């Protein structure tokens, strides 16, 4: 009989502890969730502004890709001009390209 009463007391204590523990856990989880929620909101804001920036950059990328601009830059810095279609060869035609004068064969 005595052991039964003792067991009940132990059980009560155990449950109290358990309840206490879970409360603490719940409390901390709740705060964690709150923190995460704040993180999420700021991340959403960040993503939004990044996407906005990407959108603007895409437009700028297009603007910079203007073929006339690239053509002018290639001519200025690389000395490239328009390709003469008659100068195009496939791999087998490489031998048909003459050597420059003064370059040893």
């Amino acid at each position, binding site marked *: 009989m005595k052991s039964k009463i003792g067991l009940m007391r132990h059980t009560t204590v155990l449950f109290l502890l358990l309840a206490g523990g879970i409360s603490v856990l719940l409390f901390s989880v709740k705060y964690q969730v709150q923190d995460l929620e704040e993180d999420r909101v700021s991340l959403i804001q960040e993503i939004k502004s990044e996407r906005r920036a990407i959108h603007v950059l895409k437009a700028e990328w297009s603007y910079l890709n203007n073929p006339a601009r690239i053509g002018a830059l290639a001519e200025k810095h690389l000395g490239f001009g328009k390709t003469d279609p*008659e100068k195009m060869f496939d791999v087998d035609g490489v031998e048909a390209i003459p050597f420059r004068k003064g370059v040893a064969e």
Partner: protein
Amino acid sequence: MSKNTASEQAILFDSLDPDRIRVESARKLALETGRTRLLVTGVVLCLAFAALAVRLAELTAFGIPPGVRLASLSPHNKPITARADIRDRNAMLIATSLPTRSLFADPRDVMDIEEAALKLGALLPNLSAEDVRHKLALGGRFQWIARNLTPTQVYAVNRLGLPGFSFRDGERRVYPFGPIFAHVLGYTDVDGRGIAGVERAFDEKLSEPVAPGETRGIDLALDLRFQTILREELAAAQQRFSAVGAAGVVIDAKTGEVLAMASLPDFNPNEPEQALGKNGFNRATKGVYEMGSTFKLFSTATALDSGAVSIADGYDTSEPIKAARFTINDFHGKKRWLSVPEILVYSSNIGTAKMALEVGAKKQKEYMRRFGMLSPAAIEIPEVGHPLYPERWGEISTMTISYGHGIAVSPLHVASGVATLVNGGVMHPPSILKRDANSLIVEERVLAPKTSATMRALMRLVVRFGTGKNADVKGYRVGGKTGTAEKQVGGGYSEDALVSSFVGAFPMNDPRYVVLVVIDEPKGIKSSFGFATGGWVAAPAVKSIVGRIAALTGMLPQDVSDEEPIKPGTPFYIPARATQPAPKIALGGIARAAH
């Protein structure tokens, strides 16, 4: 003692046997009810917790959707701008909207109109103090003051700290390539509604919201690089020959996709007010012109395909045709019998008219309809011109239409018709939208494949031996046809106002691209020996375009040694003879400068 009592009570309590307890019926009933309620509550609670447990297990173990899907479903992931982008066929952005802020005022809340007007007028360009005063004097509760401010300007206005002024988020349409795509794209009004071109045609599609994660926008068939080449070469030709305008089209011969389309003069869609007047007029689709001799291609194809004429036939072109009050003559007549290929190569009006008479008006009209020449071009943009042709399609009309007079169509009509001629005889409605590789293409057979093969050979002959020599690019088998038509001025035709064109396709053994260049009112110059005809004005432009497109797409030059020479006696034989430069245009009667 107390301990004893406690244990006694415990014993007593412990030894109670439920069976031995007798409770009075009323109490028993209450007790039973209580027990039942307790049981029901317990069961319900257990079920609820079980459901929670199951859901928890489900979520942790199975139910989590992949993160990407979650992100894409987020309501925060909606597009940055209300209006969708327009891209070229290589996904390069050619029209987009950028978020901006616009300044508005509630005039009732503005405390000192004079101060606000002076400060804002000094701060913002394109806005004078007088403007602000005027707008604030209009009253009401809402007045736009300045649209689309830069972040710096927004900051500066905020610093003024004027009451009654605030900002509203908006967006501004931006075209990164400026005038390159002008007429195709069109433009939008200040509120972002499409006014012309693709912006107008797909206004609804561009502004409708889509489910998050879905791709937005429109992919055009046009290629930025092709478009740049076409526009540059058109501008060069226009300038060289002091022409009032120019138009050009590059079309994919196999699918009907419009790879480039330009019209000069043009405008910068970033500044839509430039599009007012003639700059906004799309000559490539909206303008209709009597195209002149390029139409001989369709007449020859009609004659051959209907069986009325054989490639081995020929006609006497030594005498002009006199019909009613008209005289049909040749521009540089050979004054002899010409074979069918020679008629096309030397662009003989007399020969073509005679061929058309054998075909007959009814059949000619039917073929013209099948080439799409009798209805507005089936392109998506709203600026399309209605072809002009005679209501009474009589014998004289049959003859003049055969060499491209008395019928006016848009340049796009001609390009699309020539694509049909060379691609095996199948008509694809021209499209400004990129075609999906596995989507079904609308097509209608117009010519037998054999006729198409003959036409390819004939077009190549025109460039090798005839009026189109200036369009040849070595190794790329360019084929085509020149056209020169006098413009109608008042009631008659003007000898000084020409529409000179060249339509070509390459490589002729398996054509991939059709290139059309039309120059409006070119003036002859020294290096063209004073000529302003299609062969001198438009053909060299097509040559440059073909060369640049070939180099761009990595198309390799072919060995063309199999082309030389054509034996005498075969139908395609063109006798070698000096083609003396024809006299400068001096023709009477109805226009028949055909070259």
